[in-house]
């Protein structure tokens, strides 16, 4: 049974079954990344609007690559040069985009909940490409896919998340996804970035604990997830970069406390030498580049799922009248 997903706004409301389905679908698109010919015609004639109201390079390029490999066209809203700067409201901007008849809207916004708000007003599927400190669903999925590939499972793992967790939508999506598969979380970072409230964000029953010292946090980990230290925020509460390195940088000595088969994830862009030492970034346990490759596969799966079929109305008409194609759908 195919779970019916109209938009992809967050991972929190999705069931373990739906999440597994999305990961399985991504698997098929991973294979295409290895084809000599990567361009498909599956979504030919469809277009995907990419509206990034907040700066983004890799996510936008990744969604763009996913759309174009499926044969779809993209419409790009350039935030820097857009009417948003001229004071147009969010809804007016997306209505305008929608009037150009895209089949799907991928959007990032600095305000949590903005994609959900937009989805309520549009009749096309909306994909959340990161909203404020709320969620970043495609990143959560690509992290899970990377873990599943490397460790063979995403069930019952010890996951350590290091850094600015309070401001991280990536951490939230990861916890919502992996928490449904019984993973346990240890959060660690400067205290102002790891508030007590974070212990309650996961699915019911999820074990989330906070650790003060990185050595303790990394102990016995299956997966160590690093978050980018937003250097622009470092001096906001008093913590210098050198203090951060001293207390929280993941280096070889600290990583040795994790399980020998542990892997290291980073959503990028990395600050080499701040949250991660270069030897770890380039080491065999690092999955940073696999994450990027998997990101395209996951986003292809998302777009294919949301706009690859016939859509809701067509589903109803098809249920009644489908003369030739039945059990042997094509032949």
């Amino acid at each position: 049974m195919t779970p019916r997903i109209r938009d992809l706004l967050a991972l929190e409301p999705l069931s373990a079954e739906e999440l597994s389905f999305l990961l399985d679908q991504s698997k098929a698109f991973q294979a295409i990344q290895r084809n000599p010919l990567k361009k498909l015609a599956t979504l030919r004639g469809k277009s995907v609007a990419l509206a990034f109201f907040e700066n983004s390079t890799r996510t936008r390029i990744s969604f763009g690559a996913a759309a174009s490999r499926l044969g779809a066209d993209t419409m790009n809203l350039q935030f820097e040069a857009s009417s948003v700067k001229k004071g147009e409201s969010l809804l007016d901007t997306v209505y305008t985009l929608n009037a150009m008849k895209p089949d799907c809207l991928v959007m990032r916004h600095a305000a949590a909940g903005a994609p959900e708000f937009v989805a309520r007003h549009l009749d096309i599927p909306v994909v959340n490409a990161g909203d404020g400190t709320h969620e970043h669903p495609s990143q959560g999925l690509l992290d899970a896919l990377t873990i599943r590939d490397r460790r063979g499972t995403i069930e019952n793992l010890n996951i350590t998340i290091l850094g600015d967790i309070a401001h991280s939508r990536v951490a939230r999506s990861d916890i919502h996804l992996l928490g449904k598969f019984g993973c346990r979380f240890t959060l660690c970072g400067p205290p102002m970035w790891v508030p007590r409230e974070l212990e309650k964000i996961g699915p019911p029953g999820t074990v989330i604990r906070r650790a003060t010292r990185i050595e303790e946090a990394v102990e016995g980990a299956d997966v160590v997830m690093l978050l980018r230290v937003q250097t622009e925020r470092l001096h906001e509460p008093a913590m210098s970069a050198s203090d951060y390195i001293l207390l929280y940088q993941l280096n070889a000595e600290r990583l040795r406390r994790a399980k020998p088969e542990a892997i290291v994830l980073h959503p990028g862009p990395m600050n080499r030498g701040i949250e991660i030492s270069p030897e770890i970034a380039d080491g065999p346990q690092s999955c940073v580049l696999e994450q990027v490759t998997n990101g395209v596969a996951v986003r292809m799966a998302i777009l294919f799922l949301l706009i690859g079929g016939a859509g809701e109305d067509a589903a109803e008409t098809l249920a009644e009248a489908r003369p030739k194609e039945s059990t042997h759908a094509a032949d």
Partner: protein
Amino acid sequence: MPQVEKAQLMSAPEIDRTLHRLAHEIVEKSGGTKHLALIGICRRGVPLARRIALAMRGIDGVEVPVGTLDITLYRDDLSKIAPQAVLQSSDVPFSVDDMDVVLVDDVLYTGRTIRAAMNGLFDLGRPQRIRLCVLIDRGHREMPIEATYIGRAVQTSDTEIIEVRLREVDNEERVVLLDRTP
């Protein structure tokens, strides 16, 4: 729409015999098996391809690589078929460049699946030759496509459905002819 079983076209032993015959025919008519490869089309072409490869091993120990191809991404009716399409993973663990590929499927009907499969194959490389092997050819072609190796050709009407049920997929092993009763 209710479906009524009209006839059984093949029993389990008949399927088995037919696949052995097809294996022999392919080996016999290939002019060497060095570059031969079987690619099953998801879903039921996959177990059929595996079984034919197994049968070939019994013929002078011919070892033939087997791949699987999901054609969902190459269909021409994707936007008509289902609200949301589900794909299986394709898995062709060898290079198809210069290979002598035999595509394997359960039923040949409109020919559209095979068209899609060939497109999918070309994305993987450039085979030297592509032939088609099907368990059942039921006619009603909409494309200029014919099978090289046919288990059994069956005359059917448009309202009839042929179901190949295989133990790997359906927990049952036979080929049946169904009719949609209005």
